[in-house]
């Protein structure tokens, strides 16, 4: 993934076409895409449950509108930062078609990156609808009004996207070692659900879950952008959380690079 000058120029020059073809592919996959989106509606189920529990007295510091805001924001972040790159890589490795990608003079990391970025317009369209619902519902009352925080929210989502892509790229690269990565994906999702705040806000969960979450990447993939979007926070706290995201971007990118590098060495030794 380390590039020399001429390779950077090639990637930059090719990127618009890679994105355009990626958008066409997303549109071609639209039915599968919509079905995939429907499978990511768990926050809506949790929202119904938690608003019911929190009516009146609230629950561990969250009122019913605060839960609505939290879960809708979680759904937006999940829609915008989700990625199917691992399943795509697994499929290509299993079918042997990764070979075709390796014989192109652009590193597969960038071609996969473009294909995942290309899905963002469709994901954003869905997120706009969700955001409109968020603003139109009682959840809007709890949203922050500070302009700086509003500016930091998309930055936090972008960093979350990068961590998410790197993690999924790492899982996909593991298919170069393992014959089957479905179980790995399931294990990942179990950990993600618990430690990212996808299931419940982290501060409503018993110790040591919130403390452990602070040392894992999942919180920085979901809870952090959701908090920046939905809580009135001191700007220093926001910047501190974004700093944590930057660290995880660097760590997960390094992990993705290392796993790919090791995996490809193995692929070059035994083939597929």
């Amino acid at each position, binding site marked *: 993934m380390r590039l020399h000058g001429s390779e950077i120029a*090639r990637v930059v020059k090719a990127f618009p076409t890679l994105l*355009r073809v990626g958008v066409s592919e997303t549109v071609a996959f639209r039915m599968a895409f919509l079905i995939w989106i429907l499978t990511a509606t768990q926050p809506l189920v949790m929202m119904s449950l938690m608003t019911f529990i929190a009516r009146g007295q609230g629950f561990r510091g969250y009122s019913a509108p605060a839960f609505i805001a939290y879960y809708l924001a979680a759904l937006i972040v999940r829609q915008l930062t989700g990625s199917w790159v691992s399943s795509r890589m697994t499929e290509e490795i299993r079918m042997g078609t990764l070979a075709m990608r390796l014989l*192109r003079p652009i590193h597969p990391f960038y071609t996969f990156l473009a294909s995942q970025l290309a899905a963002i317009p469709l994901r954003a369209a869905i997120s706009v609808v969700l955001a409109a619902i968020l603003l139109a519902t009682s959840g809007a009352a709890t949203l922050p009004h500070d302009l700086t925080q509003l500016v930091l929210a998309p930055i936090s989502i972008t960093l979350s996207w990068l961590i998410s892509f790197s993690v999924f790229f790492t899982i996909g690269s593991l298919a170069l070692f393992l014959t089957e990565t479905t179980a790995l994906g399931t294990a990942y999702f179990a950990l993600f659900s618990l430690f990212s705040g996808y299931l419940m806000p982290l501060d409503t969960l018993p110790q040591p879950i919130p403390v452990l979450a602070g040392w894992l990447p999942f919180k920085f993939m979901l809870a952090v952008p959701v908090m920046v979007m939905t809580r009135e926070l001191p700007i220093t706290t926001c910047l501190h959380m974004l700093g944590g995201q930057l660290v995880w971007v660097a760590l997960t990118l390094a992990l993705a690079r290392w796993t790919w590098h090791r995996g490809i060495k193995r*692929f070059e*030794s035994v083939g597929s």
Partner: protein
Amino acid sequence: MKTLFSRNHETVRAVDGVSFTIERGERVGFLGPNGAGKTTTLKMLSGLLHPTAGECTVDGHVPFRREVALLEKITLVMGQKSQLIWDLPPSETYALNCAVFDIPKPRFHAALEELTELLELGGLLDKPARQLSLGERMKCELAAALLHGPSVLFLDEPTIGLDVAMQLAVRDFIRRYNQAHQATVLLTSHYMQDVVALCPRIIVIDRGKLVHDGDLKALVKALDPDKRVSFTLPHPINDDDALGKLGAVLARDGARITLRVSERELPGVVSHLLGTLEVADLGIEDPPLEDVLRVMFGAAREAAVNE
């Protein structure tokens, strides 16, 4: 239960001491039975596999480094693996290849026009790849693989699953591309006719080892010098004794007979057939390559057993 905790590993030398050089513009057939190491060799040459020992270079490059300069010169077509984007028309894969290979637009359009004409792709370019027939898809695969103008073609079973007409079209295209671009072609195919029609030189490997490298005709002559003489009699006969004096009867289909005749006896047999038996449709051919290779692989197996 034991296999749950410890797995037995066996080291297999997929390719062992294979050595050859191919000159620019040559068309070489790469033959061997299943599991002989053909695809492994092609993958090593194209940079997908890293040889554990030995040396291999393609146009001065070490393939497994997959340098951009090499990737721009080579292509690998695997009949059973597609590079076309399944849900999009081939034109989208071509646009993608144009971008990643950084092909200048005028050169891209000229190459696409040439390939569209040679492969008769009109009407296929805007059809989703998943809707193309196997033959149509293979033609589109070839175009995708050649748009960047590679000078070295590694073709692994490019005609697999195609009907006879499509096999002929693909063969004809490969020959024309080779002639027009002075491209080097290394071809594997289970269809011997592909090899016979395209490759003056063949390299044969069996169980990872090189067993022949040279002229196709010389190989045939060395292993089975006898000719196949086919003819049609005015009416069917059942007298094998009479025919047996001319040569070994290899096939009999009504009045159509195929004999195996040594080169030395050929003139006499032919004049006898024409002069005495009034045969029609007389044809003289070398033995089919399949038969020759069967003899060769059989001999190699025997030698391996004796070792």
